[in-house]
């Protein structure tokens, strides 16, 4: 036991003396959350738009003024013709152009309806879609005002946004970041640190020591488990205090599940370390087999239901998918274990399977 404690101490010192890497490990989740919270927005704000106004009447000028006054848009340029506008699109000066043709005022007077053309840069389809619907809303509101419709619309909708009343994006990215960081840092760091011993040849020294393989594994992995627990707390605290992401359910349950996920990530790291020989290989496997699926196939950023069926099937073997269902349930819906017992059992099964598999593989190398 004493021997093991000594080894454990050595491992901790080994990791914690590299101050810069330590800093980065703690800063990555914090920066990621701050960027998601303060930088990445999926709304339209001050989108630069241009105008081709061949009519120049009261109505078109009023429309342009209203667009410019709206928070969503900034009318930056008036073009004389389509060629000029197209050059503007190619040089990324504008995202959309509103076109009123020469007949605009005439048609509006005669037929009470006139065409408004919106040209959109759809090389970014989502942005184009948003700009299109916002412009249409502004036009329709103006038309309603002109009609002096006043009053309430005949059918109104009364939305009730469950679990996230103010539609805050933090409710998605805080749990997502937790899954990504735990998977990435835990699995990547642990696999690299073991492979490094192999690469530099010090693993052989460890193996001929009187330590049992299980002790070596435990000693190698526990510093990273400790590190990950610190990250869990920093993510949850920033999420809670800075972005107001609640934990409606039980903290104990949340921490237990997070620890289960950390164990799973560690066993994945261990498994990777038993099959590769170089640190670079460990890194690329971690990125391709762990980080990308965790980011893309877990429902973190992109909804799984929108993917092709085959990728939806692949998502069933991505542990982060289950982890996210569980922690979103605990944090945002405040439900207990009976709502996600299936997911917990799947994670537990995966963890046990991976531990058994990697311990077996690790022993094999000894002989």
């Amino acid at each position, binding site marked *: 036991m004493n021997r093991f404690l000594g080894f454990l101490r050595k491992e901790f010192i080994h990791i914690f003396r590299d101050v810069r890497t330590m800093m980065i490990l703690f800063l990555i989740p914090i920066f990621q959350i701050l960027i998601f919270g*303060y930088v990445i927005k999926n709304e339209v704000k001050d989108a630069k738009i241009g105008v081709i106004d061949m009519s120049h009447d009261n109505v078109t000028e009023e429309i342009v003024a209203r667009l410019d006054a709206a928070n969503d848009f900034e009318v930056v340029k008036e073009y004389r013709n389509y060629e000029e506008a197209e050059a503007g699109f190619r040089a990324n000066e504008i995202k959309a152009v509103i076109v009123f043709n020469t007949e605009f005022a005439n048609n509006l007077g005669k037929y009470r309806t006139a065409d408004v053309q919106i040209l959109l840069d759809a090389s970014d389809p989502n942005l184009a879609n948003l700009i299109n619907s916002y412009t249409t809303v502004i036009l329709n509101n103006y038309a309603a005002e002109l009609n002096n419709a006043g009053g309430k619309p005949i*059918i109104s909708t009364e939305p009730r946004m469950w679990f996230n009343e103010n539609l805050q994006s933090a409710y998605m990215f805080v749990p997502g970041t937790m899954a990504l960081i735990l998977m990435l840092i835990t699995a990547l760091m642990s696999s690299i640190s073991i492979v490094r011993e192999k*690469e530099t040849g010090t693993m052989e020294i460890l193996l001929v020591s009187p330590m049992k393989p299980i002790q070596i594994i435990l000693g190698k992995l526990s510093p990273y488990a400790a590190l990950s627990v610190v990250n869990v707390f920093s993510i949850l605290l920033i999420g809670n205090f800075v972005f107001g992401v609640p934990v409606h359910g039980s903290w104990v349950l949340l921490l237990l599940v997070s620890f289960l996920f950390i164990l799973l990530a560690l066993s994945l790291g261990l498994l990777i370390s038993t099959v590769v020989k170089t640190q670079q290989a460990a890194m690329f496997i971690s990125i391709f087999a762990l980080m990308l699926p965790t980011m893309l196939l877990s429902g973190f950023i992109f909804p799984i239901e929108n993917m092709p069926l085959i990728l939806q099937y692949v998502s069933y073997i991505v542990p982060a998918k289950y982890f996210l269902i569980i922690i979103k349930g605990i944090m945002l819906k405040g439900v207990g274990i009976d709502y996600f017992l299936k997911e917990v059992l799947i994670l537990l099964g995966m963890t046990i399977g991976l531990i058994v598999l990697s311990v077996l593989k690790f022993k094999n190398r000894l002989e």
Partner: protein
Amino acid sequence: MRTLLIILKKEFKQIFRDKMMIPVIFVMPFIQTIVLVYAATLELKKTEITIVDLDHSEFSRNLTAKFNASPFFDISTQYYNFGLIENDLLRENTKSIIIIPQNFEKNLRQGIPVKLQMNINAIDGQGAGLISIYVNQTVASMVREILPRNGNSNVNVMPVGFNVKSRFLYNEEMNFKHFMLPGILVILVSMIGIFLTSLNIVKEKESGTMEQINVTPIKKWQFLTGKMLPFMLIGILDLSLGLGIGMLLYNVPFEGSVVSLFIFTIVYLFAGIGLGLLISDFANTQQQAMFSIFFFFLIFVLMGGIFTSVESMPAWAQQLDRINPIYYFMRILRSILLKGSTITDLFKEFISLIIFGITVMSIAVWKYQKTN
């Protein structure tokens, strides 16, 4: 010159001797362009929606039919137990529940405004916002249909209306893959430029072979060129590979000129490799290098406009993007492929990348010490 050729030969041998590198270099473009492009879709396809019809009238059936016809909704249950709303949302049985109230038709015919309650699972706030917009659009289209029959409209006071005609330029079908593929190519090229260069150099340090090279008469520029040129070539190769897959598989257009694309790629790779070299100057172990790169890569990618629009970011973040090489290359690649922009159109990005590349490369080369 001969020395340089020999060094290059050694470097290529060393890179390809590593069994791991072949899959990394040749399989990576396939995985990224095929799996990632399919996975990374923000298109809202079909949302499960449950309609609780408490009115059972012509109007309520008309509205339900409208939802059924909309490409955005997938109507699951039509008859429904009112008390189970919360439970169904908690268990994710449905994404949203719309309740058509009693007397829906009666009130409408008498001109009394009615309210539709919609319950949306809003954990994905953005998605919930979209659902609410589409529901309102569907309701509005029904209102337009029933209004004239209500006798509310009068020919003499025909309402003023604008007939909005939208044209989606450069991507008429609003194909999200055409948007995503250039982004994935940027990640691909950056990974090769920054990660591989940096790790390759640090590996020599870690295994001690760097010292051996340092005592040879090889000059600093020869050594660095030998380290950087192979990754420049691999980067260009992988970009072409990924681009080829994208054009074949997703019909991604190539509107601009091939020459300008490759000129930009070389300029970008120069900057990226410079960054990789700079990081390797400060790292002693591969682990250190990896995590330093990870840190910067994450920030650059998230802020570079690959998955989301830079235009939506706050002004200070857009200012910060001036020192983000990924931001420039992202704009460049998308503009050349989808819009056919030329170097003149992208002159600002071109100059900025060159300045960035030269600055980073100069610092990196200056910091690199042949002697310890």
